[in-house]
């Protein structure tokens, strides 16, 4: 699909990069995400301590030399845990968004393109899943399937997928009736060919926009599940996990609660800005819908 030329006015957005780079908040957000991302990747170079290395001789140390962000109740270095924690927050959130986006797009396109009873059944299921408060459905599912990294990603993606399906079904319905699609069909193109050559490439933009707007919410949900104890499990240096016990030490060591929450907030804010930027760059018309 690499050298596919989309029809004029659809799919290709000239100047998208320029529009994105003009969006000051989005650029700032990108920088923050990159800092967290690079920090997570090269964490061993930035800190001498492992993220789960317990040091009972240095418990609950306030921020200072040696431990720039202090240590927690087990003497684990918070700077290390924040850095390594980025692997969960960024890595798993991106994975979740991609999974939800890919499956949701697939479901939405198949449903919208085929129409008929397939569409009817799929959309009823989507309606039912959307009837649940998203976070609570994820919480209940996690409680039942049990906590593991794979389960967290699968459950989060599953609970967020219906929104993608509904959105992309809408796009597909519009595209299906476009003249160039009718033309392709008249020339004898198979359904598969039409979907892969003409529909899917034009779904990339809305799916990308929605994924980037969804990422902030995914980061929060992931941290929330971990905070409640059904997501990432201790002693993993996930930011949500780090906040679980922080409340207990609020009287003696408040910094334990401060930094992980700050990391989550900054990341979510950055993703929200990037999402706004991606939306304005790729498809300003979506502004009113999202």
């Amino acid at each position, binding site marked *: 699909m690499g050298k596919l030329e989309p029809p004029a006015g659809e799919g290709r957005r000239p100047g998208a990069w320029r529009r994105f780079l003009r969006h000051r908040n989005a650029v700032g957000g990108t920088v923050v995400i990159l800092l967290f991302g690079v920090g997570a990747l090269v964490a061993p170079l930035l800190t001498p301590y492992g993220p789960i290395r317990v040091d009972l001789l240095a418990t609950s140390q306030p921020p200072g030399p040696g431990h720039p962000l202090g240590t927690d109740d087990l003497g684990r270095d918070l700077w290390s845990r924040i850095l390594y924690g980025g692997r969960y927050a960024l890595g798993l959130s991106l994975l979740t968004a991609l999974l939800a986006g890919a499956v949701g797009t697939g479901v939405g396109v198949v449903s919208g393109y085929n129409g008929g009873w397939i569409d009817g059944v799929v959309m*009823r*299921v989507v*309606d*039912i*899943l959307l*009837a*649940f*408060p*998203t*976070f*609570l*459905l994820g*919480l*209940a*599912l*996690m*409680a*039942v*399937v*049990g906590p593991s990294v794979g389960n967290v990603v699968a459950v989060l993606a599953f609970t967020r997928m219906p929104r993608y399906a509904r959105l992309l079904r809408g796009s597909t319905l519009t595209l299906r009736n476009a003249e160039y699609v009718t033309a392709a069909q008249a020339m004898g193109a198979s359904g598969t060919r039409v979907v892969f050559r003409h529909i899917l490439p034009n779904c990339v933009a809305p799916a990308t926009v929605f994924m980037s707007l969804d990422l*902030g919410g995914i980061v*929060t949900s992931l*941290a*929330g599940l971990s*905070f*409640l*104890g*059904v997501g990432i499990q201790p002693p993993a240096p996930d930011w*949500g996990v780090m*906040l679980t016990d*922080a*409340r207990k030490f*609020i*009287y003696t060591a*408040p910094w334990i*609660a*401060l930094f*992980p*929450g700050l990391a*989550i*907030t*900054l990341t*979510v*804010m950055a993703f*929200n800005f990037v999402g706004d930027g991606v939306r304005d760059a790729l498809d300003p018309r979506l502004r009113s819908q999202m």
Partner: protein
Amino acid sequence: MARFIFVRLLALLPIALGVALVAFLLLRLVPGDPARVILGADAGAEDVARVRAQLGLDRPLAIQFGIFVGRAVRGDLGYSYYFKDRVMALILSTLPATVELSFVAMVAAVAVAVPLGVVAALRRQTLVDYGSMAIAVFGVAMPPFWLGILLIYLFGVQLRWLPTMGIGGHFWTWDGLRHMLLPAATLGALMLASTTRLTRAAMLDVLGEEYVRTARAKGLTARQVIYRHALRNALIPVVTNLGLQMGNLLGGAFLTETVFAWPGIGRLSVDAMFRRDYPMVQGTLLVVTLIFLLVNLVVDVLYVMIDPRITYD
């Protein structure tokens, strides 16, 4: 209007049935046999078979679902493994605390957000405007469990003004209100943020409309223009957003209740997860989701009341 509400309620039925199906299937996702979960690993095969029969697990899935719905309609959501009590009774005893908290959080958020958004739109690029935008950006990004901990630190630990745990009675009593302030602020923050942002944006949109210019041109006072013409129209997307935010509010209530040891349905549910009390998890999910659906129906009705252009046939 009564007809509209009736039709909407009717349309809700298949969705509610689907929600019940998901909640029903949830228990089937539990690894292992529910009878064994109840009895423990060393129970004999005979006992397991007996409990399976008692729970109706030996019957076809469709019949089990039919029985589940039949009972749920009569308010019977089964028995909690942990409390050995009726799930419905436990839900009903914790629900008021959650409703009270959510209600106060929502009303307070809207009461602050709408005026703030309006003032921000009227005084663009002033301190008020920048302040409201900062609230909007931070409020959306801050996870409620962190905001809660920060508030506990500030008002409970440092200033010692407010209690940080539990419930103190109804919110209209002094002690109840004191206990309510921090959890309600925590829970309401997200709604405050999104409502402020939307009110501001909607007001800016509406203030550029022709009918507002007309209203001004014909000599109405600024107050009349703002309240009767601009705000009323600006509120339409704001109300829509309230409906959309309701799900987040309920999710936030589960987190907030955990942080503040608030004895509501959220804590009941989260505790049940750790006790592997699956009927409780199932029951709370079902009840909260049905409430969510009804609240959204109410929002739709409000919508029609604010905007007479929307017909309800």
